[in-house]
């Protein structure tokens, strides 16, 4: 029996007193898909960086085909055939698809002149290998997220790849795109390429991998064939406790209509969208690629300007296409990407919360009532149980789940009537996810209307009273929550 492709043994890494990894060891065989599962902070990214040669372990060994390696560098790691695909794909927006795929390979060969034909051939060959057709001359920035990922995978294959590490590859993809990715992973495996799939989206983990390794707090807590695990046991290992998905408390029959959307249309995004939202209701909106659900969510908050249609809140029309007007009318929006869209990373935690309330605390001449403003922000920190020992520290010092709570606090401080949450628990660990769902239920209990845009089927089922399905820009289904299970919901979405 030949040696496994990569074997880690006793890998330990500490950063400034914090143990990121402790005595972690497992192996990956050629053509095998291994899933590395764990919450944020479990040590997954550190392990990736060590395998990629970007970081060195303090203790422990890494062996390739049985040969223990000296200290790894990014170059040594790449030459050994280890390719890491980071979450942002590391593409060049201004270069063509062909150049993006072949650049690294050409660099590696040390050529000085551009070999245009060779690059195109190489690009075409790798795209064929994964069974994908993307125009070679398209500029990187014009590609969809799914296509960018495919180009990133093609690039990894352009030079000899024996292990491809994918860091949270499905975060930005829809259901159908995920299916496509899993097919590609199967092809890679058949080709003898090993895959390390780092994720905390549980369903995919089990479907595509032979082996599962679970990290928690830097230690390996479980390892074994994928068929030995299911969603519940994985969650238990990752969080250390059971997290059950329960449907939400039923809505009061006499709840008044809060938000009415009629005939909302925007060319190329969505068409004739109608729905109502009642006070205390949690409405889910989901759909596949091109369904228009994100554009719709943004349109509700004015980030996108619809051409026709009306949005009425409490009987009053909300001006379209203007976030300031939407916020003033009582609509709030928690964005998908909190790091770039939601937070001011260098500013303090309280400032991040208080930014929505500046005008409310302004006295004559625009002068702020600073004490009132900051006290209110600190109050919200406590109410949402944000773990922040120093509220004046920059918000980037918080964990992902706490950061999401800061964004929530900002909007809740404005006492909105409707809160739109776009992917509320994307990139958030399982434990925090449950707590955020608790906050959603609380908001609804206080009479707010909540709209949840999500791809995460368990999330939709456990938080929403109704789920609207969008397809091709139109609203095609209105499903009562609790009437379906996950498999059925997936079918309805895909059909």
């Amino acid at each position, binding site marked *: 029996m030949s040696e496994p492709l990569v074997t880690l043994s006793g890998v330990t890494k500490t950063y400034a007193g914090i143990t990121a990894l402790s005595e972690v060891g497992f192996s990956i065989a050629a053509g095998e898909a291994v899933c590395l599962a764990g919450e944020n902070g479990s040590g997954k990214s550190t392990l990736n960086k060590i395998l990629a040669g970007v970081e060195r372990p303090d203790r422990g060994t890494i062996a390739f085909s049985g040969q223990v390696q000296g200290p790894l560098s990014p170059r040594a790691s790449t030459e050994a055939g280890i390719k890491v695909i980071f979450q942002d794909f590391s593409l060049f927006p*201004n270069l063509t698809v062909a150049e993006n795929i072949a650049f690294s390979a050409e660099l590696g060969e040390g050529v000085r002149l*551009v070999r245009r034909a060779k690059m195109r051939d190489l690009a075409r060959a790798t795209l064929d290998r994964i069974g994908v057709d993307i125009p070679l001359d398209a500029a990187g920035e014009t590609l969809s997220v799914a296509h960018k990922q495919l180009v990133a995978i093609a690039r990894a294959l352009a030079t000899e790849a024996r292990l491809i590490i994918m860091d949270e590859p499905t975060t930005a993809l829809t259901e159908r795109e995920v299916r496509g990715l899993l097919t590609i992973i199967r092809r890679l495996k058949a080709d003898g390429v090993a895959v390390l799939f780092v994720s905390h989206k549980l369903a995919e983990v089990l479907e595509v991998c032979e082996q599962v390794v679970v990290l928690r707090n830097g230690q390996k807590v479980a390892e074994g064939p994928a068929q030995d695990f299911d969603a519940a046991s994985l969650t238990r290992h990752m969080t250390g406790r059971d997290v059950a998905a329960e449907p939400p408390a039923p809505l009061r029959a006499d709840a008044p209509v809060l938000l009415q959307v009629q005939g909302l249309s925007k060319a190329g995004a969505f068409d004739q969208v109608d729905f109502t939202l009642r006070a205390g209701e949690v409405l889910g909106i989901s759909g596949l690629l091109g369904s228009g659900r994100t554009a719709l969510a943004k349109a509700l908050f004015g980030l996108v300007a619809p051409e026709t249609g009306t949005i009425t809140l409490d009987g009053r029309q909300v001006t379209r296409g203007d976030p300031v007007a939407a916020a003033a009318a009582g609509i709030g929006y928690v964005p998908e990407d909190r790091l770039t869209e939601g937070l001011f990373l260098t500013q303090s935690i309280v400032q991040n919360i208080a930014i929505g309330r500046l005008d409310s605390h302004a006295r004559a001449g625009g002068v702020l009532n600073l004490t009132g403003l900051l006290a209110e922000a600190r109050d919200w920190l406590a109410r949402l149980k944000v773990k922040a020992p120093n509220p004046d520290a920059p918000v980037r010092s918080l964990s992902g789940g706490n950061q999401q709570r800061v964004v929530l606090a900002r909007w809740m401080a404005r006492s909105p009537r409707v809160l739109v949450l776009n992917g509320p628990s994307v990139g958030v660990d399982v434990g925090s996810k449950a707590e955020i769902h608790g906050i959603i239920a609380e908001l609804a209990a206080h009479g707010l209307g909540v709209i949840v845009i999500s791809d995460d089927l368990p999330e939709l089922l456990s938080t929403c009273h109704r789920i609207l399905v969008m397809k091709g820009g139109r609203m095609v289904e209105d499903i009562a929550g609790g009437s379906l299970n996950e498999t059925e919901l997936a079918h309805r979405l895909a059909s």
Partner: protein
Amino acid sequence: MKIDWTRNETLVALVILAFCLLAALSDPSFLSIATLTDLLRGGIVLGIFAVAAMLVLISGGIDVSFTAIAAFTMYVTAMTLNALMPWMPWWAALGFGMAVGAGLGAINGLLIAGFGLPTLIVTLGTLSIFRGFMLTFIGQKQITTLPPSMREFGRMMLIRGENADGSFYNLHGAFVVTVLVVVLTWFLLQRTMLGRQIYAIGGSVESARRIGINVRGVQFFIYVYVGVLAGLAGVIHASMARVANPFDLVGLELSVIAAVVLGGARLAGGHGTLTGTILGVALIVLVRNSLIVLGIPATWQSVTIGLLILLGTGLPAWQAKRAAARAA
């Protein structure tokens, strides 16, 4: 031929055509060899500067010190050759200029690539340092007697001719240098991996590092290359003007960058073509030299250039904004 209306190059080319049309209507003698050689002359030094500025913009930076490098180089070259090597032939002056420019560019390169300091600020600082150093320690007086090499170069004409009315026109030999610079830079950017790496760095510095591009090495190279071009431009300027005035050239930087941006290069980096840059320079030169023909007094020159810059960059910006709003 498919015309892409959304590209800057197309718009600028159209404005140039319209301008020439209007000028020709105002004054039929506008369309003559004399006008053409005048315009080409105006573009010689500006063209070299613009190519240099474009290179830096593509890599994602901004350099405002190149005019100071040019002034420093031309003054030092004139002084040194006069004092130490008056026997050198014309090409030695150019070579010397390129060497001095390279040295100054290397200082920029060291600060930007070596220390990782932001490009705009560093080059603002080195602009002051180079200029200040020259005026304090090297000299403030114009050098009216240039070394023989520079004088010889200043007399080299590509084309000479006489107009119908007895006046003369000519095109200086330095035009060849500008053409060579453009061709060489085109080759660098489109046909060498180094050039593609420059675009890559401008597109995403982080991705460039991850695939193993030696970002610091490439950046150092860029600033040295820019220094060489600036030095060259400085020596050419002095040779053509028959005098080395240390107060010349500085002040043009922003207009050069504006010309390059007009031609399609983006301040954010990653984009820029030689065609566009040439067109941008052509437009600026056209406006500077030919407003009179359209009946606009010289005192309104600044306003015209300012308006052109605003229109030329404002239209694409507004289009981009509308496209972004439509895209959702």
